[in-house]
């Protein structure tokens, strides 16, 4: 395996200091203010950059199997590496859904051939139909630690209760896409004054908040753990924060599009801005950002959702929901935390340590089949690292993205901060902003 010396970056570990990180044989071997370069080691200048644990995405749609025209495990992993991710959790809403051992194994095996760690979230119910429990214990034995029917929350309250009771002794967490499907009424954007003017059926905030509230109460009843996916309203985030403060086993993520874009983006009927839960009013966007800055959010997760171009060319109400996320999440998080005034440890908490804890990918979680992620940059950690340069400005160009799909809502937008280097599984995967 290769050896690297990351020279004079801002090391964001237990403490934050300018120093060197030596990587040898797939592990961090030394971290100090100054480390002598052993002979033959590749020296990477990290001056002016942040050096921290590689990012972990709790919410990646890889589309394989079933919709390889939009993304594959391989192309998604490359996009993730470009975005600074050393581990991603593949969502199970593939075709067919990842609801059994053989399909989960397929994705794990394919993922193992990529430069990063690809963990899998299994489906809670067979086929994600919300009717029968999927074999959670069998999938857990393969190392699956998150289960979700994402795209659709488990609507049936009794089934959700049983799933939580069943999941609890397995030590796994259920991740919920919270939207009451009936209240969402097949809508295609946030319900409000904009949707009413545009003549688009709206998805009310209440559809999300009601299910968040229900699931918090089911957690209280059963003791099972829930991770709340892509919280998009001020109120649902507040509910989760309050439940966590009570000591309930809940966690919550926010997605970059929800803390950077608001519902008015839909005004031109461009389906690239269609996503579930939908883009919300400015007040919610602001509330999400404030909570991030205040350290109240567990994780940023991309909900990276590639779609073939012809599907995003459909009329707004017919087009599929979802947008790309992996390659711009870090810059958008940096921006939301205040840009130049943002706190590096908070940044890595949202992008790496928080999500690694929820996905049980830290060293102390002893992940099966995967290396450890989200560590404190101490000797002995697996070498999953990122160098983030907060001084680079770059413009999003969909043609230049690694993802097979092009449905980025940030086309043409100038972002601040970019991943320069990704070291995953001990190897240099991205260097100087290029895949090696």
């Amino acid at each position, binding site marked *: 395996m290769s050896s690297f010396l990351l020279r004079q970056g801002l090391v964001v570990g237990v403490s934050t200091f300018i120093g060197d990180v030596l990587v040898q044989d797939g592990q961090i071997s030394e971290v100090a203010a100054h480390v002598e370069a052993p002979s033959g080691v590749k020296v990477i200048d990290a001056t002016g950059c942040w050096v921290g644990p590689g990012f972990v995405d709790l919410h990646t749609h890889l589309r394989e199997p079933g919709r390889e025209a939009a993304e594959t495990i391989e192309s998604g992993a490359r996009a993730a590496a470009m975005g600074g991710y050393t581990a991603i959790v593949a969502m199970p809403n593939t075709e067919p859904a990842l609801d059994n051992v053989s399909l989960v194994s397929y994705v794990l095996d394919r993922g193992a051939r990529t430069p990063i760690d690809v963990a899998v979230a299994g489906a809670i119910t067979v086929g994600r139909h919300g009717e029968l429990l999927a074999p959670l214990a069998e999938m857990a034995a393969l190392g699956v630690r998150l289960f979700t029917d994402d795209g659709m929350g488990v609507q049936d309250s009794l089934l959700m209760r049983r799933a939580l009771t069943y999941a609890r002794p397995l030590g796994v967490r259920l991740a919920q896409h919270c939207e009451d499907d009936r209240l969402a009424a097949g809508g295609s954007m946030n319900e409000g004054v904009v949707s009413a003017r545009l003549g688009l059926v709206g998805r009310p905030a209440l559809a999300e908040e009601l299910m968040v509230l229900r699931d918090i109460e089911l957690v209280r009843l059963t003791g099972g753990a829930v991770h709340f996916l892509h919280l998009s309203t001020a109120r649902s985030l507040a509910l989760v924060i309050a439940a966590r403060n009570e000591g309930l086993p809940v966690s919550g993520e926010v997605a970059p599009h929800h803390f950077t874009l608001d519902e008015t983006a839909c005004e031109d009927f461009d389906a690239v801005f269609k996503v579930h839960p939908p883009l919300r009013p400015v007040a919610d966007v602001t509330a999400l950002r404030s909570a991030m800055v205040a350290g109240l959010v567990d994780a940023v997760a991309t909900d990276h959702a590639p779609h073939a171009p012809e599907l995003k060319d459909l009329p707004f*109400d017919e087009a599929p929901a979802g947008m790309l996320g992996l390659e711009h999440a870090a810059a958008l998080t940096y921006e939301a935390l205040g840009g130049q005034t943002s706190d590096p440890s908070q940044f890595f908490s949202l992008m790496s340590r928080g999500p690694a804890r929820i996905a049980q990918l830290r060293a102390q979680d002893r992940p099966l089949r995967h290396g450890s992620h989200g560590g404190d940059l101490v000797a002995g950690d697996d070498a999953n690292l990122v160098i983030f340069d907060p001084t680079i400005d770059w413009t999003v160009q969909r043609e230049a993205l690694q993802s097979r799909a092009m449905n980025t809502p940030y086309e043409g937008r100038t972002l601040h901060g970019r991943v320069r280097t990704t070291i995953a599984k001990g190897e240099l995967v991205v260097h100087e902003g290029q895949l090696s």
Partner: protein
Amino acid sequence: MLDTIRGSNLLTLADLSRDALVEVLDTAESFVEVNQRAIKKVPTLKGRVVASLFYEESTRTRLSFETAAKRLSADVLSLAVASSSVKKGESLRDTIATIDALGIDGVIMRHQSSGAAQQVSRYVPHVRVINAGDGLHQHPTQGLLDAFSVRQVLAQRRGTTGLESGSELFQGLRVLLVGDIRHSRVARSDIAAFCALGAEVRVAAPGTLLPDEIAQWPVTVSQNFDEALEWADVVGLLRLQRERGTGSFVPSLSEFTATYGLTVERARRLRPSTLIMHPGPMNRGVEIDSRVADLPAAIITRQVTNGVPIRMAVLYLTIAGSSVEVGQ
């Protein structure tokens, strides 16, 4: 805000200023006379090609647009969606690219999805797109012909002409829209037009058929339908959109008729001068009683008649822009 639609697309009335609206109404006045001639044709758009692309059933709007285009001497490509490759799964983008490849100056588009006309306008930026109704969003030419019809009748009563009155007759005019506002693109266009022209608009509907956040619209919601009927100078009825799943929004058609239908009894509350409009097609016996629809105060067929000069004006202004004079 646009101050003219000359050379522009017509996708919505929501971004048109009073001047832009009056310009269309005034231009339409000049085409009324053409429609009364024995030979109802002017060479205004001779050599221009207009495609009519209707993804949704329509009788009067399609006929009206195609008649308007032909009276302006435009060549009309009429795409019957049911018999085209759209049925084989061709996308909107490919369909419009195909038609565009034949060489067109304008496209008249009706679609069941809100925003479809605006999407198409992005695919063919060099072609003028005229929205003939998109989902629940807008039906601009209906809003224009409604305003035109009201101005025409009021001007005649005053012994003046629409052209001379400009927007004056709309100042303080009391317009009441009744029924399925929520699912109505006609309501959205009517509200935009009448409000911009200076009228006062009220709406009356069961709670479930009002749009979300109606409080932020430039209208007031009537709490008492009977009182609102006495208040109104113009009553605009809207079709109960049964095909859009209106069924679960009201308990039954008969309950809707009992509470918000313009029955014979309710029509007695109207002042004799009050005008009754309906964009058609009517559900006689549901939102309007058959006998009320046939009252002299009902200007429903006048609306249809005026559809042609309004659409001639729209085609002329958007496609010819400022390069051709009317009647040349």
